[in-house]
């Protein structure tokens, strides 16, 4: 058994050490074949797969702050692929399969723990939507199950499955292969391998302009000077609209605060991941024992990496409805990310009207779980100039044709 194999780890383990070397801190070169804007999980994974799958290594990943310090450092690390539509389950399941070998692939203890994810249903319509998703998942080869309340209690005994609560648990979908991973470890695993391929990871380097000549991208202007580029791949998450606006491109995105929090370290109480869209809470117990929780998105546009208190307050109330044993757990830290949300709650990954400028954005709350999958597909798109079948449905022009991949109506599950 690999010493880092933590797939069966229970909460409470000591975290494995990071390696002694992660990456160089090079100065930017004047020119690269590919410049990736955004050194988060997606940008780093894209760089890695460009090198690994396509042999492209003359790459700079430009990060305006510190690597993986945006949403990659702020998400609740839930990984699952049980999305409703074929297009979504396609890319997320591809991603999940990559997750299953990622630890070996990156040679990094990413603490991928397939402890299963429960998506609770609280109303009869929730039940219908949930079962619909399970049936679709099963036909798409995804390990989805429908659990009755008593089965929910078997998987996660601390969930209050009493029928006498305000919004009783009427059942849940369950994906056993779903789980969590340690976000920093994932990002650093990609970063380290990218660095080892000779890819330049350049921090404190904010893109302030994108150069276009004759409809074709030629480079970027940054706080560390101009960098010429054969291709530019945007991976700026919440800042995608700001980046796209540099080439006059308007996107169907709105950037919202999304808050999350952790508790102190607790003895193992919560063996799986529970998500409840109806009462707006999702929670897992991470490797060391802290409860990691997320809530609903703040309604307004916000780039401030902070949200409103009532969201957290509501989330705590919801958490106690589902998990009465959490009453005296303590909220230790809260934070917020900036999620870029599309009208159909599906991402945009593909080409833009500007030649050699590529777009990956709009992941809303789903970005972390997609990291390897989208890195893979986006790298293909950048390398070949053509969308991979996995991301082809997520083109920008679907908003013109009407071929949306509407994940909020039917799936009724965020995150």
């Amino acid at each position, binding site marked *: 058994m690999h010493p880092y194999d933590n797939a069966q780890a229970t909460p409470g383990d000591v975290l494995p050490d990071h390696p002694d070397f992660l990456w160089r801190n090079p100065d930017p070169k004047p020119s690269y074949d590919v410049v990736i804007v955004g050194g988060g999980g997606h940008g780093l994974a894209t760089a890695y797969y460009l090198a690994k799958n396509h042999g492209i290594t003359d790459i700079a990943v430009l990060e305006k702050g510190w690597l993986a310090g945006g949403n990659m450092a702020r998400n609740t690390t839930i990984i699952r692929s049980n999305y409703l539509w074929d297009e979504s389950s396609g890319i997320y399941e591809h991603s999940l399969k990559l997750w299953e070998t990622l630890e070996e692939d990156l040679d990094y203890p990413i603490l991928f723990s397939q402890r299963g994810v429960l998506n609770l249903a609280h109303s009869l319509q929730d039940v219908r939507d949930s079962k619909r998703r399970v049936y679709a998942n099963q036909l798409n080869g995804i390990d989805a199950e429908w659990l009755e309340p008593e089965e929910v209690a078997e998987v996660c005994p601390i969930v209050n499955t009493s029928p006498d609560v305000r919004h009783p648990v009427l059942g849940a979908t369950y994906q056993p292969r779903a789980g969590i991973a340690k976000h920093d470890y994932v990002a650093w695993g990609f970063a380290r391998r990218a660095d080892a391929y000779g890819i330049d990871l350049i921090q404190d380097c904010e893109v302030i302009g994108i150069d276009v000549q004759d409809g074709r991208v030629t480079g970027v202007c940054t706080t560390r000077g101009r960098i010429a580029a054969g291709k530019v791949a945007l991976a700026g998450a919440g*800042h995608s*609209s*700001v980046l796209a*606006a540099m080439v006059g491109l*308007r*996107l*169907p*995105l*709105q*950037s919202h605060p999304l808050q999350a929090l952790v508790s102190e370290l607790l003895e193992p109480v919560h063996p799986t991941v529970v998500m409840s869209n109806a009462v707006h809470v999702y929670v897992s117990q991470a490797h060391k024992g802290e409860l990691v929780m997320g809530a609903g998105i703040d*309604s*307004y*546009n*916000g*780039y*401030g990496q902070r949200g*409103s*208190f*009532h969201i957290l307050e509501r989330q705590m109330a919801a958490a106690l409805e589902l998990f009465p044993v959490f009453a005296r757990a303590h909220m230790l830290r809260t934070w917020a990310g900036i999620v*870029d949300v599309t*009208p*159909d709650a599906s991402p945009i990954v593909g080409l833009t009207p500007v030649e050699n400028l590529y777009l990956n954005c709009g992941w809303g709350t789903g970005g972390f779980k997609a990291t390897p999958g989208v890195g893979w597909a986006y790298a293909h798109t950048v390398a070949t100039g053509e969308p991979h079948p996995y991301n082809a449905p997520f083109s920008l022009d679907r*908003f*013109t*044709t009407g071929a949306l991949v509407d994940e*909020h109506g039917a799936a009724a599950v965020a995150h």
Partner: protein
Amino acid sequence: MQLITCPWCGQREEIEFHYGGQAHIAYPEDPYALDDEQWAQYVFFRDNPKGPFAERWVHAAGCRRWFNALRDTVTHEFLAVHDIRAQHPLTTGTAPAAHQRKGQEVS
């Protein structure tokens, strides 16, 4: 939680309001004169600036009136609020976003 000044009711907590996204997006005068791409721009595409943003709110739990606001999306500071009727007669009305948030609300 932001304290928002309703032009009519004064300062109230954010939870009394619903967000309406970008302001000043008028319903096209002739939707059928637009091609699908132009129509999609109207239906789905909105500005998303980092900084001051002209947007709409409705005092849902108060006087139920829509109003326009200029708010900084980084600091969350409201730079101005104004009653739609007084400041922006007919032509600068704004259109509802295509997708509304789900919620359990009152009517």
